[in-house]
């Protein structure tokens, strides 16, 4: 039993806003849902599966009611920023089993207007809260150890931001459109060692949505056919503090699961959407997914290797979370959206990968240096 080729992404939408003080969070969810349904050529009456995550305030009850849906399959799996990549896999499972035929996945929020409520804690609370783990310093701790073990440098991390900025200059909706240099990144203020401001993603209001459906329905619609052929998910944490190793992510498990299901390898990928909450996130995930050997990520990302039309692995051609958009501090949705644009041939002409028929969308959710999830989706243009 596999989800390979069982589910198609028929509709996509990324909200153009990056600052939405005049809209409600539910309104943003509705706007992205409407956008994705219109992109697919479907309506809310067609939706029979709803997939949301922790950004949907109040959960499934208010969202289903507010959107006027009557789903026969629902899922609110919450794994932070990669929730939407996990949701894509879960939607494909539900579609493969006939539990739903038109699945809506939404993401929306307004962290730029007002900071989101802190995530509820688990058994670790008394033993960790006081120490102030945040995204910046938890990813910083992972970066620090990676530098120690493998000699990774700040210059190498900077190349990831440089590549993203080269792409963002062509995205009219990107929050940061200026092309930056390695020196610009190194001259930006230190936030949490060794990560500087330009190693960090943007904070934006906004959202995005996906419509996932059956082969039969996808073929009845007008969009180029893009289907999911492999999917993986995994979780990682300190697990009692034994043999702690922060130099790899849960992508070492989700990646191989997805590639094996798809029957392809990292080297087959024409385009890669790689979650870029921070530059170190990209570097470690590329290693973990097998685009290069562990410890060689720094060398791999250098000298423009991630710039479309320049390097060997075009990544995040929308400008990614580092420059374009990171709605509600969750980058998984936009990773899928740009991968689908590339596969459809709808990326910016300057950045469109020729004959892009295989792509990966991969993300991390939670804190890389503490507890996190990972999810990998392998997508194919039919």
């Amino acid at each position: 039993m596999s989800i390979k080729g069982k589910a198609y992404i028929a509709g996509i939408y990324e909200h153009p806003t990056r600052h939405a003080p005049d809209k409600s969070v539910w309104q943003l969810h509705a706007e992205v849902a409407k956008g994705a349904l219109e992109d697919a050529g479907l309506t809310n009456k067609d939706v029979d599966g709803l997939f949301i995550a922790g950004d949907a305030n109040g959960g499934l009850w208010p969202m289903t009611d507010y959107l006027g849906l009557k789903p026969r399959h629902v899922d609110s799996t919450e794994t932070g920023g990669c929730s939407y990549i996990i949701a894509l896999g879960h939607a494909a499972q539900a579609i493969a089993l006939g539990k739903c035929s038109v699945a809506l996945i939404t993401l929306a929020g307004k962290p730029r207007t007002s900071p989101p409520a802190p995530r509820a804690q688990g058994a670790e609370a008394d033993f960790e809260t006081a120490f102030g783990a945040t995204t910046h310093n938890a990813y910083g701790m992972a970066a620090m150890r990676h530098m120690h073990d493998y000699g990774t440098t700040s210059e190498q991390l900077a190349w990831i931001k440089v590549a993203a900025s080269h792409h963002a200059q062509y995205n009219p909706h990107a929050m940061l459109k200026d092309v930056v240099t390695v020196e610009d990144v190194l001259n930006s203020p230190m936030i949490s060692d060794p990560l500087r401001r330009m190693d960090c993603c943007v904070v934006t209001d906004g959202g995005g949505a996906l419509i996932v459906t059956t082969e039969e329905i996808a073929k009845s619609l007008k969009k180029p056919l893009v289907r999911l052929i492999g999917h993986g998910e995994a979780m990682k944490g300190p697990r009692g503090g034994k043999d702690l190793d922060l130099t790899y992510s849960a992508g070492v498990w989700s990646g191989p699961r997805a590639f094996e299901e798809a029957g392809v390898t990292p080297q087959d990928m024409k385009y890669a959407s790689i979650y870029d909450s921070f530059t170190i996130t990209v570097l470690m995930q590329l290693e973990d997914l097998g685009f290069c050997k562990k410890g060689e990520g720094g060398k791999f990302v250098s000298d423009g290797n991630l710039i479309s039309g320049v390097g060997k692995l075009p990544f995040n051609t929308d400008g990614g979370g580092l420059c374009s958009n990171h709605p509600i501090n969750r980058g998984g949705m936009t990773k899928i959206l740009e991968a689908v644009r590339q596969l459809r041939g709808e990326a910016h002409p300057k950045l469109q990968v020729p004959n892009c028929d295989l792509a990966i969308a991969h993300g991390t959710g939670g804190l890389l240096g503490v507890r996190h999830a990972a999810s990998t989706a392998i997508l194919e243009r039919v």
Partner: protein
Amino acid sequence: MTEAKKYPTPQGNPETQPFWDAAKDGKFLIMRCTTCGDAHFFPRSICPFCFSDKTEWEESSGEGEIYTYSHMRKSATGPYVIAYVTLKEGPSVQTNIVDCDPTTVKIGQKVKVVWKPTDGAPLPFFTPA
């Protein structure tokens, strides 16, 4: 300054209360499984490695070395250094490195536990040994 910070009071629960009771006496407890022999932290009654319920409290030396760290340059409560310290007994624990110049902190540095007060039981921080 780190010293002036107000830290949250540990709430405790039936499973972890012995840790906080010992903390009041300046003892840093970890949990060891007598089935697989491995120690873990934070403490759980069922071993996270072999799932045995034969776990016992053990007093740690409170000594270890820094596995990794990050110097958070700004926050609402001022700068601080978050870190993982690998205890001599094995487990790595999340903490802050305190009572030192943050710019001198290094991976591999030897550190020892230092307790900081709350309105209840104190909390385990680490400082250069």
